[in-house]
């Protein structure tokens, strides 16, 4: 099967929802140890934490942080959809929740971007 057919066969909303949920989950899981390490800098005093926070002001770091916030919102909302499918009454593949997942990502992205520009 050619690659384009492989993608076409998976071009339905629930599959995209799965792909977004998996990729966001992996990236967030890999990020967690970094996050914990960064916060633990406070053990060496406020100055040590400040050094990290200054590093985090670099544009590429801010962009990565923004991406993580969006991924977190996507993973959360997509995850609630899965919990509803697995534990709630059957109402189909809940494509309305797929739309809400995209919306939540947009809202979180906008809110964080606005917060950064204050």
């Amino acid at each position, binding site marked *: 099967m050619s690659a384009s057919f492989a993608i076409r066969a998976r071009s339905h909303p629930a599959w995209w929802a*799965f792909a977004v949920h998996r990729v966001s989950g992996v990236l967030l899981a890999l990020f967690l140890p970094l996050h914990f390490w960064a916060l633990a800098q406070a053990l060496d005093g406020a100055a040590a934490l400040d050094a990290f926070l200054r590093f985090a002001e670099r544009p590429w770091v801010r962009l990565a942080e923004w991406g993580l916030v969006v991924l977190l919102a996507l993973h959360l909302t997509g995850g609630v959809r899965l919990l509803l499918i697995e534990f709630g009454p059957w109402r189909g593949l809940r494509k309305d929740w797929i739309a809400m997942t995209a919306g939540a990502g947009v809202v979180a992205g906008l809110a964080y971007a606005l917060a950064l520009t204050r």
Partner: protein
Amino acid sequence: MESTVDVRVWRGAAQGRFVRYEVPRRPSQTVLDVVTYVQRHLEPTLAYRFACRVGMCGSCAMTVNGVPRWTCRTHVAKAVRRGRLEIAPLAHLPVVRDLVTDMTAFFDKWARARGQFQGATSRAAPVARIAPETPQRRAVDAGIECIGCAVCYAACDVVRWRHDFLGPAALNRAWTLVNDVRDVAQAARLDAVAGDAGCHACHTQGACTERCPKGIAPTAGIAGLKRLTARAAVERS
């Protein structure tokens, strides 16, 4: 309407290649019509399966332009992409030859999921009275029409990624039996469908539900099995 359709058909087994044929177009032509034309007029050695050719038996299931479908119920006009059709055997099953797959594993998994009814009465007992409107019977009725065509099995990525995954059809059948109040093998069945090779490996990709030609939603039954098996595992410990 173009006068011909450019068809690529899988020839060989696990090793093989797509061979091009040009097939005259007809009104209301189905993909099964195309395959039949190739075998009758162009390539007599082409191996393929069909039976009823009216969308009842599921024997003609193949991969059409990447999507598993019943070829007798797939109009060429709807499936063709830029004048082209690519026809391959159903995915995730060993290929016997050309478009014919070996369905043994599919039905073995059905058996492993305890997809057989087990009752406790004999023919001497009165006929069981099952009310059709109970939630349990509704759950059974929603999944009972499965004819074992393996389209869902071919569509599922978890089947592709986990060789021991029982798959949507086997789990759907188990779900219809789990909800059958006459069946007495429930504990063994819940054990059979639990775990990483069972319902808990399903990631709700929903390809089974999207592709099922009978409109069955295996995702629903698998979600139900997840709840029941998890509860059973916790209660037993």
